[in-house]
């Protein structure tokens, strides 16, 4: 294992020190492993808390700031944070208008956030609502399983819902918007290589040079299937087609993210975006806005994911609203 770390045990604590040093607009609670805005938002506005395992940077900590999150709870690598972290964050950011928990749909994340909401409700002071993001079309959705994973759409949702919260919308409105975004977005990912979890010390899976994993999540787990390596245009098809098969994008404008898994260089991400845009265009789908880069990663995994969100004028204008975070910034 080759990593720029001091020890597998101290990765998270050490990285949080770096984040604190790099971003004066953020404040890090090292004890609880929570990243806050240095300047809390206005009283009377809904606050957004997210969090999850580490190793997906810039998600979530890189999206704490004006126009997006109020706090992000960092778990160990690929391990959801704990209810006490979330509860501390929830109490800290509440500005009297309630708190939205943005949870990616993983058993661990859901259960820990559930316990946190129970704890917060026991204190009877904070109004907590939860949205569970589950956009990964690689996973069959079913009542009898853990359902779909939450992946790339989380980034878009945090931006859009964050803008709405910043505008002063009520908790119910914010929840409704979050549900709408979650319902209207889909993602699909692939890996060229496994990642290496620091504590595990070796790649999670072996992938021969002529194979790739299709339908991966963001935790280095193997995908739905292992298929022969293909050129970029065919990889793009294998990502886009399942998304289009799952949701009708009609004539709506879309927001598209071509996301890198952490180990793939930007030149390849641009190349893939070109292929994805071409396929969407062929299907008559309009891309109103896009993001190309590493936004929700899986440590050092090589690979990428595509997220397509069916938007409308309101969503696009929330997308365009000013944002000032380490990971996304425009308009200020």
């Amino acid at each position: 294992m080759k990593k720029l770390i001091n020890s597998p045990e101290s990765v998270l604590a050490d990285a949080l020190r770096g984040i604190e040093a790099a971003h004066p607009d953020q404040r890090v609670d090292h004890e609880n492993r929570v990243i806050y805005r240095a300047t809390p938002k206005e009283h009377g506005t809904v606050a957004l808390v997210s969090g999850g395992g580490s190793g997906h940077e810039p998600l979530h900590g890189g999206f704490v700031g004006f126009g997006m999150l109020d706090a992000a709870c960092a778990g160990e690598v690929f391990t959801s944070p704990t209810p006490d972290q979330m509860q501390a964050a929830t109490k800290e950011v509440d500005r009297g208008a309630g708190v939205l928990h943005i949870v990616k749909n993983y058993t661990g994340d859901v259960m820990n956030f559930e316990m946190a909401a129970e704890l917060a409700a026991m204190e009877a002071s904070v109004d907590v609502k939860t949205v569970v993001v589950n956009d990964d079309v690689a996973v069959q959705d079913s009542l009898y399983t853990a359902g779909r994973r939450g992946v790339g759409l989380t980034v878009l949702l945090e931006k859009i819902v964050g803008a709405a919260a910043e505008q002063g919308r009520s908790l119910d409105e914010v929840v409704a918007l979050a549900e709408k975004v979650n319902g209207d977005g889909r993602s699909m990912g692939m890996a060229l290589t496994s990642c290496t979890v620091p504590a595990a010390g070796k790649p999670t899976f072996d992938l021969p040079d002529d194979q790739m994993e299709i339908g991966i999540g963001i935790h280095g787990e193997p995908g739905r299937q292992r298929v022969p390596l293909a050129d970029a245009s065919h990889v793009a098809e294998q990502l886009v087609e399942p998304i289009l098969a799952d949701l009708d994008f009609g004539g709506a404008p879309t927001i598209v993210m071509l996301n890198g898994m952490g180990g793939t260089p930007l030149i390849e991400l641009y190349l893939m975006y070109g292929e994805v845009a071409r396929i969407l265009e062929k299907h008559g789908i309009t891309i109103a806005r896009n993001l190309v880069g590493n936004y929700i990663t899986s440590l050092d995994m090589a690979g990428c994911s595509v997220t397509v969100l069916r938007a409308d004028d309101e969503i696009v204008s929330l997308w365009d609203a000013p944002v000032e975070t380490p990971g996304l910034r425009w308009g200020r």
Partner: protein
Amino acid sequence: MSTTISIDGFTAWLDAFRTRVTENKAYLTELDSAIGDADHGSNMARGMAAVMDKVGAAAPSTADELFKTVGMTLVTSVGGASGPLYGTFFLRFGMTAGSVSECDGPALAAALRAGLEGVVARGKAEANDKTMFDAMAPAIDALDSALASGASLADAVAAARDAAAAGRDATEPLVARKGRASYLGDRSAGHLDPGATSTAMLFDALAEVIAA
């Protein structure tokens, strides 16, 4: 061979569990690499290390105190799926065991059953979902029936241990329906479930301590 398990016995149980998950940290993580995210070993080792630290410092004298500490420590130090599940297991275990300094067989069985119910309440797993449930439920069933048929505590717990191991082994061919392994669909078959494997260690530790 005693007919009850005392606070010291409980502590020894936890310590034996800690030893097992620590020694098998790489193994549990390897199982989780195949069908999960390669962290079950580090999660359990980190959690049980924190538990033994806390228990050592607090030295609780009743089961409810002890297991509240255990459960809360797991909940606040593990995260992931196993944190809330094992945490809830021990919290419910302690609540049912109550403010006592020792448990006999039926009391132990009742506490374990309450723990199992907590796991189910949290995680909604059913039999053959390929989770820790598949080791835990048969173990507690075996304990109950052994006690009902008049077996000694040691023999009953040994039966529970064997049932947990069998339940763990039986997860291998299953297609997962809960937890991360479910994302793999059919590819999850052919691998032991990491959580069922750590749960088998929990009962193995209990059997060792009771037999001692």
